[in-house]
């Protein structure tokens, strides 16, 4: 059995990535590149998240797994609340001025809401995910890195084709303007960044190669409108390797 022992010793420890649907692009990239990865994707783990008095929490089995892991944990928990709030045009069209970049374009047909009010709405949609991140932070022995959600894709026409509209009759079939989605993504990242600063975790910005000069996702990394593809996952995987 000594050959097996040696082989195991030669293999690097797998990277640990935990979270929701954005984990998929990293898992695909790991498969393509042959990178050892422990991908804990809640979307493929029935029962991984339990409800405790209305609050989401990790199952006992998952808690146990995290406790026994010694290395860093990369979180892709949540990461879609900005899409929930603003991928589609709201029946009462709205926009806001991003505090950090107030000169960004506004939707001329939209009413402008206070950025702080929009932030509070977004925070309410992220509450469950931030609670899970807190739990992961408490359980893991190594450092916690949170990987920023993939940037938005500017071309709404391309996204339009990927949305299963037939499943939602009566909805307005309109993707929100690109800069509105961009601002929500930045606001989402700001909330996560603030959480990380308070929790002692590290926010890993999206790979700089993945965005164009305006900050939108480059086409070669586009997945399905809400997600990035495996090529993007490879960039993230490389970030993880460097940080591990």
């Amino acid at each position: 059995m000594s050959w097996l022992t040696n082989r195991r010793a030669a293999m690097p420890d797998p990277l640990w990535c935990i979270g929701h649907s954005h984990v998929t692009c990293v898992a695909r990239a790991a498969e393509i590149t042959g990178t050892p990865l422990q991908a804990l994707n809640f979307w493929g783990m029935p029962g991984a998240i339990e409800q405790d008095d209305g609050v989401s929490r990790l199952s006992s089995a998952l808690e146990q797994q995290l406790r026994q892991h010694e290395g860093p944990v990369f979180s892709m928990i949540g990461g879609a609340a900005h899409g929930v709030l603003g991928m589609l045009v709201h029946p009462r069209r709205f926009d806001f001025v991003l505090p950090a970049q107030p000169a960004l374009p506004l939707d001329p047909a939209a009413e402008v809401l206070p950025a702080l009010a929009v932030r509070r709405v977004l925070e309410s949609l992220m509450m469950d995910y931030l609670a899970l991140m807190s739990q992961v932070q408490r359980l893991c022995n190594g450092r916690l890195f949170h990987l920023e959600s993939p940037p938005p894709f500017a071309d709404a026409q391309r996204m339009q084709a990927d949305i299963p509209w037939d499943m939602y009759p009566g909805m307005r079939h309109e993707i929100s303007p690109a800069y509105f989605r961009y601002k929500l993504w930045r606001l989402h990242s700001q909330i996560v960044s603030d959480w990380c600063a308070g929790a002692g975790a590290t926010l890993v910005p999206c790979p700089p190669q993945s965005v164009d000069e305006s900050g939108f996702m480059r086409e070669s990394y586009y997945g399905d409108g809400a997600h990035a593809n495996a090529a993007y996952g490879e960039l993230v995987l490389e970030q993880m390797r460097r940080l591990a």
Partner: protein
Amino acid sequence: MSHPYLDIPDAQRWSRAMAGRTNEAIDPVSSPPFRIGVGSRVVTAGSCFAQHVARHLREQGHACFETEPAHPLLTPALAEAFNYGIYSARYGNIYTTRQLLQLWRRATGIFVPVDDIWEGADGWYDPFRPGIQPGGFSSAREYQEDRRQHFAAVRRAFGEMDVFVFTLGLTECWASREDGAVYPLCPGVAAGDYDAGRHVLLNFSVDEVVADLRAFIDEVRQVNPHMRMILTVSPVPLAATAEPRHVLAATTYSKAVLRVAAEQLCRLPDVYYFPAYEIVSAAGPGYFAEDRRTVLEHGVRHVMSLFSRHVLEVSSSTPVVASYEDFVQRGKAIVDTLCDEQRLDPPQGDPGWRESSDDRA
């Protein structure tokens, strides 16, 4: 013997209208020249007491004519924190008639104050609505965009309302020495910086209050000739006076001026005075909290029950509750569907879920 008092109605005789009556049995309201009909577009404004008026109107199904309503994504608590739904538009409390006239003139572009925006340590502030949102505006641009929307909402509210219920609150206010712009709060109290060289205390006389409100009525009626008005005087005493005299004396002066001004103004066509001030003050301490300033809820209820009985036509409508959940739930469904679709195409040999914690990949 005959004289004018012989056959006067009971309401005109103290012994019958007041003496021995409980607070709740006192009804000093005279017949209004008009009533607020169901579906009337009612706009409310004024000092703190006006908030009670707006709230009770809503509770009785007379929804205020809201031209700057909260977005349905905001929860009721969040909307209230940002001063949505308090009045018809987000103008906050309007304490003086000069402030009311100024709001209309700013909204219509007649007056542009020199004092445009205040930069604070944590945000940007509207000198004329310093407490309109927590922490101020997050950028100068947000303030400018919000003000543009707000002025449009004010023009629409005043330009299209059927009935305007205005509560006269104060005679004292602070103004800019540069152009006379008046502030709802002294600069430096909620935001901005007080500068004796730039700011001056005004304490309006009856003539000034009447002139400001007449100008407001005339200017609004140029675009909204059918606008009718109900005036009240707030029974709430001054929290503080900047005049060097006792706050009670300052309160008495202020209420006297406002009450006389209201009396003069209600001689105008379609302007009616509703005696909220009298209803509360007749109860003595009965309708005030221990601070002798806060009007207790049962006092407010008495005022509003008389307002309903004499001024409102019966409404069968129920308040409209904004739907917060619908859009968010549908948005979740779309994103979840895309997430679900990811699940339909998982990477081969997905090492993901491990029931056994011992089984490390």
